């Protein structure tokens, strides 16, 4: 609180007792300057703009200051307002202009609008606290302070091939009473589970949307269960720069920024990166029937893709589509990501429905999308991981063809489907399986295996347990007559739909989970697991739990005990991956010996060594990675041999002979009971029979040659 007034910061105007002057056009948003706050906002079509100022939580504004015409530069309105209590200030804008939907304009000066560049939003400070529905300004822009002490923290810059990603919902992770944490469902609570995450062997958490969203959006009573349907997942952004206050135990004090930064800092301290799932494809304003919160009322035509009639293109499946390749919107996205990378030390971003980001203003896919190029070459984001969900709801599917500029990785949906089908026992999958375990060179020939984010389950679709417990989705609780959610789950219930007491079926389901985790962890590329899959969480066959704030989305920590065998296995299979650099290559295999070890970097086998059966009826594949070729021959590792059998009976697999007196040791055999299904590093037993191995029906075996 400076007391001197600098000569270049003095008021020139006064209105309603508020002193102000012409502001700085950049940066957009509200920025603290000596003695005051600089407000700057863009609108290409507004004819008038008014700054609206509130005391925190007050129903009515204490001042409304119209921007004098001379304060507008181009299409930017800027003003410095002096002597505001920035701790208690909430602000918004009224924009005046035409309301002509057919021309794309939806101005309405009766509505107070959030600043697209606000760094915090008030109004939803505690999760599901009943809002005041009569509030004339429900999502209130606030300022944040740059006084967080990061000490020596900085993004970890872990090589992407070394990551094991853990997709997590902030609230779902600790909300269940069994989590036994203080402040469940918050950023703070995640901190108390860091030891667990480390123990599990993951080194990157991918947080489902934490941008401010409204959990009350489209909330209604569930006609089936009588419970409340809410926006739980949060794929509906209210503001791109603000962390969700309702995810912070201190949100009611307005301290969500500090709480999140503290979480990031603690995770970094423990060697765990933080990736954000970001949603730039649409906003919470919905279609023409939706609420006007911010963008629609500020500059509808700039921020949204509109049809010639002025309606909203709906490539996101949620009502509207952000006009990401408009230069102004593009800059906002860039500003936003730079802010998260610089101010929150975020290590990477996963872009929801990223194919939309490559569409032009009429929705046509661009060959050289400027936004994607800008992100790829941005100096501030240079070390951030950029991951695309390379499809959208409008049918654009770009897995393998996403405009990557050598920087982008992709959620590999083909990997997910191929592995699911193989594990289910489908025929004709061996060729695709071979692609999967190599990081899919057919798709990513020029990009290397690290372009492939490998996953078998994620928030969207069945959990890993449900994949082997349900043939069909069971989404009745969503209140949409089971019509929502995907139908192509490639799942198999192992004989009974849902929960069963049949010990054989339960054992088979656990084995299938271990098979899935094993294949995931020996595949080249970047593995990602869904939070809770390591303990066999179930969503009771619901494959689209976007709307449930209950046990369907809350991780049941009691499963740590119930499914201890799965957790024990998951812990060790991640360690196995970490212990063997031969599993984490930056470049594709060459299928030849280029280091003179006598063996190619990768070789394929089957029930006969050196003779893989790629025929349509085959359900067997084995492969060997030569340890001398680890990391392109720069590191010496053990050789790794993996035998996968999705046939229902046990089969002998002939083993390739190892050179130089080396022998095969057993690391993993999913057909064995816990304790013998996976061995700690360095404690693998030597095989008595070095010539062949009996691989059980629907089982995976991993050997190391040393």
């Amino acid at each position, binding site marked *: 609180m400076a007391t001197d007034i600098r000569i270049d910061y003095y008021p020139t105007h006064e209105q309603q007792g508020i002193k102000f002057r012409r502001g700085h056009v950049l940066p957009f948003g509200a920025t603290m300057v000596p003695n005051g706050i600089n407000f700057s906002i863009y609108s290409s079509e507004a004819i008038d703009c008014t700054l609206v100022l509130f005391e925190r939580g007050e129903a009515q504004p204490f001042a409304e200051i119209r921007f004098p015409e001379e304060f507008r530069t181009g299409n930017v309105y800027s003003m410095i307002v002096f002597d505001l*209590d920035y*701790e208690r200030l909430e602000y918004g804008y009224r924009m005046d202009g035409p309301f002509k939907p057919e021309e794309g304009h939806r101005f309405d000066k009766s509505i107070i609008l959030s600043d697209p560049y606000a760094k915090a939003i008030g109004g939803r400070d505690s999760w599901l606290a009943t809002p005041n529905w009569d509030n004339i300004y429900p999502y209130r822009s606030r300022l944040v302070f740059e006084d967080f002490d990061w000490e020596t923290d900085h993004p970890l810059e872990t090589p992407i091939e070394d990551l094991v990603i853990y997709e997590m919902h902030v609230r779902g992770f600790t909300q269940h009473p069994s989590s036994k944490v203080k402040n469940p469902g918050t950023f703070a609570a995640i901190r108390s589970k860091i030891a667990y995450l480390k123990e599990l062997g993951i080194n990157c958490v991918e947080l489902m949307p934490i941008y401010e969203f409204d959990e009350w959006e489209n909330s209604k009573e569930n006609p089936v269960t009588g419970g409340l349907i809410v926006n739980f997942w949060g794929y509906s952004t209210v503001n791109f720069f603000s962390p969700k206050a309702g995810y912070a135990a201190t949100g009611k004090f*307005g*301290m969500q920024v*500090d*709480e999140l930064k503290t979480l990031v800092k603690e995770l970094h301290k423990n060697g765990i990166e933080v990736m954000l799932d970001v949603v730039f494809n649409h906003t919470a304003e919905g279609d023409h029937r939706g609420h006007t919160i911010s963008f629609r009322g500020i500059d509808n035509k700039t921020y949204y893709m509109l049809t010639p009639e002025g309606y909203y293109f709906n490539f996101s499946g949620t009502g509207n589509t952000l006009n990401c390749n408009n230069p102004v919107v593009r800059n906002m996205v860039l500003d936003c990501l730079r802010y998260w990378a610089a101010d929150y030390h975020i290590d990477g971003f996963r872009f929801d429905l990223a194919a939309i980001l490559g569409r032009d203003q009429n929705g046509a896919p661009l060959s050289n999308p400027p936004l994607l190029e800008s992100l790829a070459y941005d100096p501030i984001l240079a070390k951030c991981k950029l991951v695309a969900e390379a499809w959208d709801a409008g049918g654009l599917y770009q897995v393998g063809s996403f405009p990557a500029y050598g920087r982008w990785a992709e959620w590999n949906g083909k990997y997910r489907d191929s592995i699911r089908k193989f594990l289910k026992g489908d025929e004709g999958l061996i060729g695709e399986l071979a692609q999967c375990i190599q990081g899919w060179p057919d798709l990513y020939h020029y990009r290397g295996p690290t372009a492939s984010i490998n996953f078998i389950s994620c928030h969207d679709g069945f959990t890993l347990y449900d994949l082997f417990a349900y043939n069909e989705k069971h989404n009745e609780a969503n209140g949409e007559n089971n019509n929502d959610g995907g139908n192509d789950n490639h799942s198999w219930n192992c004989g009974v739909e849902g929960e069963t007491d049949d010990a054989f079926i339960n054992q088979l389901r656990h084995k299938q989970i271990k098979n899935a985790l094993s294949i995931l962890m020996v595949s080249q590329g970047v593995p990602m697991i869904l939070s809770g899959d390591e303990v066999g969480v179930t969503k009771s066959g619901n494959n689209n739990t976007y709307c449930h704030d209950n046990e369907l989305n809350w991780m049941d920590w009691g499963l740590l005990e119930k499914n201890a065998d799965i957790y024990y296995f998951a812990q060790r299979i991640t360690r196995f991956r970490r212990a063997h650099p031969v599993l984490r290559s930056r470049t594709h295999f060459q299928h030849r010996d280029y280091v003179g070890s006598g063996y190619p970097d990768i070789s394929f086998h089957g029930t006969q060594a050196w003779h893989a059966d790629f025929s349509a009826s085959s359900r067997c594949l084995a492969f060997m990675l030569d340890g001398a070729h680890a990391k392109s021959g720069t590191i010496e590792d053990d050789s790794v041999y993996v035998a996968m059998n999705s046939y229902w009976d046990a089969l002998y697999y002939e083993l390739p002979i190892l050179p130089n007196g080396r022998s095969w040791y057993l690391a993993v055999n999913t057909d064995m009971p816990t304790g013998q299904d996976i061995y700690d590093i360095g404690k693998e037993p030597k095989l008595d029979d070095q010539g062949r191995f009996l691989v059980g029906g629907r089982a995976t075996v991993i050997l190391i040659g040393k």
Partner: protein
Amino acid sequence: MAFQIESVVENQIAKLTLHGELDSLSARVFQTEIEKIANQSIDSLVLDMENLNFMSSAGLRVLIYSKQKIGPKLSIYIVKPQELIVDTLVKTGLQHSVTIVDQYPV
């Protein structure tokens, strides 16, 4: 309850006793007190919070401000804070910047 603050500086130790509720309005009083202290040579700031019932984010920011204003070498001791205040310090990571004690001298 209205916010009150008393301060004593002795032997490079500033002791501030806080009563009532520290919100964004009273934080200014607190900050003014810190600014006065900052002009003196001190190495420890002792904040007696036994009778402080509430501290808003504005109060927390004054703690950060104290470090910034007086320097990173300043030791901040918080004496007998109530549970709600400890909770807020922990959630926001500020417990690393201060020492929470039952009495001072420790």
